[in-house]
């Protein structure tokens, strides 16, 4: 009786917490839309998203920033995901146990490193390297930002993957061994298919983290407002744009574009989460049937 009562209280508290978080999110989104609305109504319509960024001529399009955000986070994910997967597999028996333990410690250390440290280190170590390797430009570019962001999102992704992979490996190890599979085969044929959802979750979180980060693109991507053409070109992400423009006159169109940028960031993240959720679910069903 008491236990059921306790359970009820816990459930209620959890539900309340979840509801308040959801409400806060909805409120943030509503406020962003509310503030962004005058910019859309101000005769510009959807030019604020698709147009050029030329504040001098009253054109406040944030499309180049949107492309840059997706590009920078996309490359970071492409680089960071295999790395995370490798580390996670290493931690779960594919590497000698000493190395696996080392990976575990390393990932824990990485989670504790503040972004600004990555930024500064990259500014003095990676940027000159990229500049000289490219033979042109400043080294402050799409590639540099993506490389460091990849490093930033690795611990997040490893932790999410590990949450699924760790218990699964424990569960299927004996079964796999009984079937005569070695560790690598168990990983590829049993563990990874069973952890499909966690992989998708890790990717979604990694992408969100990479796209939401402000300091690294601000310090490393160069911040020029142009559509990303080559990875060696300077680009400005939505987050860096917000940081750069925040202190301007709060009644200008430049300032209004911040709310549009905020809305887009939120929508984009939401879309990626939804797509990956759907993928994960259909993937899980698919695996379940075969």
């Amino acid at each position, binding site marked *: 009786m008491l236990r059921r009562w306790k359970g009820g209280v816990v459930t209620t508290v959890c539900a309340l917490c979840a509801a308040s978080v959801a409400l806060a999110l909805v409120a943030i989104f509503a406020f962003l839309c509310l503030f962004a609305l005058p910019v859309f109504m101000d005769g510009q319509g959807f030019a604020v998203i698709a147009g050029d960024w030329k504040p001098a001529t009253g054109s406040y399009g944030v499309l180049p920033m949107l492309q840059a955000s997706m590009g920078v986070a996309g490359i970071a994910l492409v680089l960071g995901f295999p790395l995370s997967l490798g580390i996670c597999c290493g931690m779960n028996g594919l590497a000698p146990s000493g190395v696996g333990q080392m990976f575990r410690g390393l990932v824990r250390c990485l989670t504790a490193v503040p972004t600004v440290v990555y930024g500064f280190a990259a*500014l003095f170590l990676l940027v000159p390297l990229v500049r000289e390797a490219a033979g042109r*430009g400043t080294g402050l570019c799409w590639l540099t930002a993506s490389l460091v962001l990849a490093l930033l999102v690795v611990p997040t992704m490893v932790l999410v993957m590990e949450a699924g992979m760790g218990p699964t490996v424990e569960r299927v190890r004996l079964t796999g061994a009984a079937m005569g599979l070695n560790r690598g085969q168990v990983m590829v044929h049993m563990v990874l298919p069973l952890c499909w959802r966690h992989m998708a979750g890790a990717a979604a979180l990694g992408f969100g983290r990479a796209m939401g980060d402000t300091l690294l693109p601000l310090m490393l991507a160069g911040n020029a407002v142009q559509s990303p053409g080559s990875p060696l070109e300077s680009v400005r992400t939505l987050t860096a744009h917000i940081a750069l423009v925040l202190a301007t006159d709060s009644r200008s169109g430049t300032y209004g574009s911040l709310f549009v940028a905020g809305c887009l960031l939120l929508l984009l993240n939401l879309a990626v989460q939804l797509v990956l959720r759907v993928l994960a679910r259909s993937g899980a069903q698919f695996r379940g049937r075969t």
Partner: protein
Amino acid sequence: MSRVISIRLSTYRDRLVRAAGHAFVVCAFVVLAQVAHAASPLEAFKGMSGNLDIAGGTAHIPVMKEAAKRIMTQNAAIRISVAGGGSGVGVQQVGEGLVAIGNTGRALSEAEVAKYGLVSFPFAIDGVAVVVNPANPVGALTAAQVRDIYAGKVTNWKALGGADRAITLYTRDEASGTREVFDGKLLAKGAVAASANVVPSNGAMKTAVAQDAGAIGYVGIGHIDTSVKAPVLDGMVATQENAANGSYTVTRKLYMNTKGQPTGLVRAFIDYLFTDEGADIIRASGYIPTGR
């Protein structure tokens, strides 16, 4: 072009002198009063209390914040709030009586003075210098060359007598007062190539230019050190002294504005920035104190 700039500057200066003329007379008395009890200039705030709201130009913020911090540390009964918003907001808010001091990075227009009855106090000079990497052999540039470089017409240092190396452009963010001076006074509102890198502070500008052999950028004069090199610009050497005596012209003055003659706490705050301690704060923020 430099002549156009200096002509514009002299009309600017005339207007300033007229606008601030009667303010100086009143200020003279206050200076005398302060000499009388010379101790710490913060003594002037003893026994005072109340709120002081400041808004406007973003370039002023570091100076205002530091002064406010020192005053509030010494006298807990005084609350000073400092907000940004830009020069336009500064004029509007002080004119409408929403704040006691409205900061501007430009002299007030005749219309603004007439409409609101504002009194201006210029307290600092904000000079901006073009900087390049210390290893760059180019030692002198003209304003026209700088404009061509930033417009993307000149793309290699070779064309300017330097090494065969691509020029990489660095500019500042939209909210930057330094950029405002650079765009207005040196580029004369000329275009900046879209490929220019944008850095968020004077410090970040120095780091970027110090590391990149092909870089060109600009910083507030107070920020120049050995990590960057300021080439001679149109024959003008960018130093604090030259900016103060008017022989370096890529400058602007920073103003505090009040509605009518200030009294009480507002008066004391403005006077504080004209003391030696105030001048130190102004210098520490990278500007040049004008004195009374």
